[in-house]
């Protein structure tokens, strides 16, 4: 069960050009900054980014947009990043906007072996276009399909060498959901502590879900 920590550069080398990549964070809070730096440095290209938002041009996912790493975005909000707005309007980036709760549930479904979820959110709006609806007990729901990705890049607070993760406050957001929904899960914790230090009840992402831990540069 033991995992050894790899560098952010080694992790970024695994993320191939054209990959779909879930990135945790909410306006950059809870985003894996060292992994993002490493992807910018290795000049990643053609990525599909799945995450809540594109933060700001100098923060979090916004840095990947700014550096030209991104071809496609699936997010709930891009209003804080004028670069995303400009690239979308100019056709250089394809953006799919997804209601935030639906995005969370689509990712949860993708990680939980479900084909998707039924939600009332978006019924009777643009969001419903091209989607099936079902009636349950007299109410109309949209069928929203599951989302998965090649990679999930997470930021955690503590990790142990079994890969167990904890999060803090509003830095959790999409991270614990994404940990289930990608083929390769790379976690960037603030600290890696010896196995046994994190009480089992405090673990929010079981270590079996984590493929690689990112250590600090020595």
């Amino acid at each position, binding site marked *: 069960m033991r995992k050894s920590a790899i560098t952010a550069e080694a992790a970024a080398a695994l993320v191939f050009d054209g990959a779909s990549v879930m990135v945790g964070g*909410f*306006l*950059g*809070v*809870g985003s894996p900054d060292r992994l993002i730096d490493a992807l910018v440095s290795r000049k990643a290209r053609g990525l599909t980014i799945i995450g*809540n*938002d594109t933060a700001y041009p100098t923060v979090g996912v916004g840095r990947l947009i700014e550096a030209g790493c991104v071809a496609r975005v699936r*997010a*709930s*909000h*891009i*209003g*804080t990043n004028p670069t995303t*707005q400009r690239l*979308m*309007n100019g056709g250089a980036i394809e*953006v799919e*906007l997804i*209601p*935030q*709760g*639906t*995005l*969370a*549930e689509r*990712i*949860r479904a993708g990680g939980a072996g479900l084909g998707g979820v039924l*939600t*009332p*959110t*978006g*019924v*009777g*709006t*643009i*969001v419903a276009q091209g989607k099936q609806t079902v009636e349950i007990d007299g109410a109309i729901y949209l069928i929203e399909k599951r989302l998965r990705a090649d990679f999930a890049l997470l930021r955690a*607070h503590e990790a142990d060498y079994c890969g167990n993760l904890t*999060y*803090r*406050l*509003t*830095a*959790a*957001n*999409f*991270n*614990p*959901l994404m940990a289930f929904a990608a083929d390769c899960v790379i976690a960037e914790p603030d600290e890696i502590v010896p196995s046994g230090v994190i009480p089992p009840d405090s673990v*929010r992402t079981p270590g079996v879900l984590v493929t690689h831990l990112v250590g600090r540069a020595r």
Partner: protein
Amino acid sequence: MDAKEIIARRVALELRDGMLVNLGIGLPTLVARFVPKGISVAFQSENGLIGFSAPPPEGMENRDLTDAGGGFIESLPGAASFDSATSFALIRGGHVDMAVLGALQVEASGRLANWTVPGKFTPGMGGATDLVAGAKRVIVAMQHAAKGEPKIVEALTLPPTSARRVSLIVTELAVIEPSDEGLVLRERAPGVGVAQIVACTGARLIAPKDAPEMPLGCD
């Protein structure tokens, strides 16, 4: 008192003791400053927290503790943090008593539009679509007009956020309640006449001549 303060003060009078409340970013955030004395409400931030207060003193910010607008906040004793799926289970599941949202337009039927001006500016819906779908009451807090154009219109020209009718519209001029019969003027701002409100509104308004003046709470 400027327009935003009038709106925030009046919306705050809709708060009731024990409510769980979600305030949208921008103008709705101001409502938290005017919680009536003697009542206690819990505010939810959809990025994953219930129980927060104003920004901390400079130098005491925590990089992992922000509101849905990205601003630093302080958590209160009794606060709870959770992931995004849990946060939206609270919202969609009917556990949020009241949501206060800004809007670009509201139409006569009570639907609102607030996430895109196609071809010009598309910030995205963020959590708004889920909030309108799931909160028990939805209050629109917005200025009555934008650049001289009414924001309350007969029919939306922008894509709706939800098919649902909002519960109440509060502007710096009036309190308006959407109903089966149409938009009903409930209150007018201090010093504002019914005729002025009708003139600034782009939809038919059921406007009793004796509409009362809106209360604005005390300090």
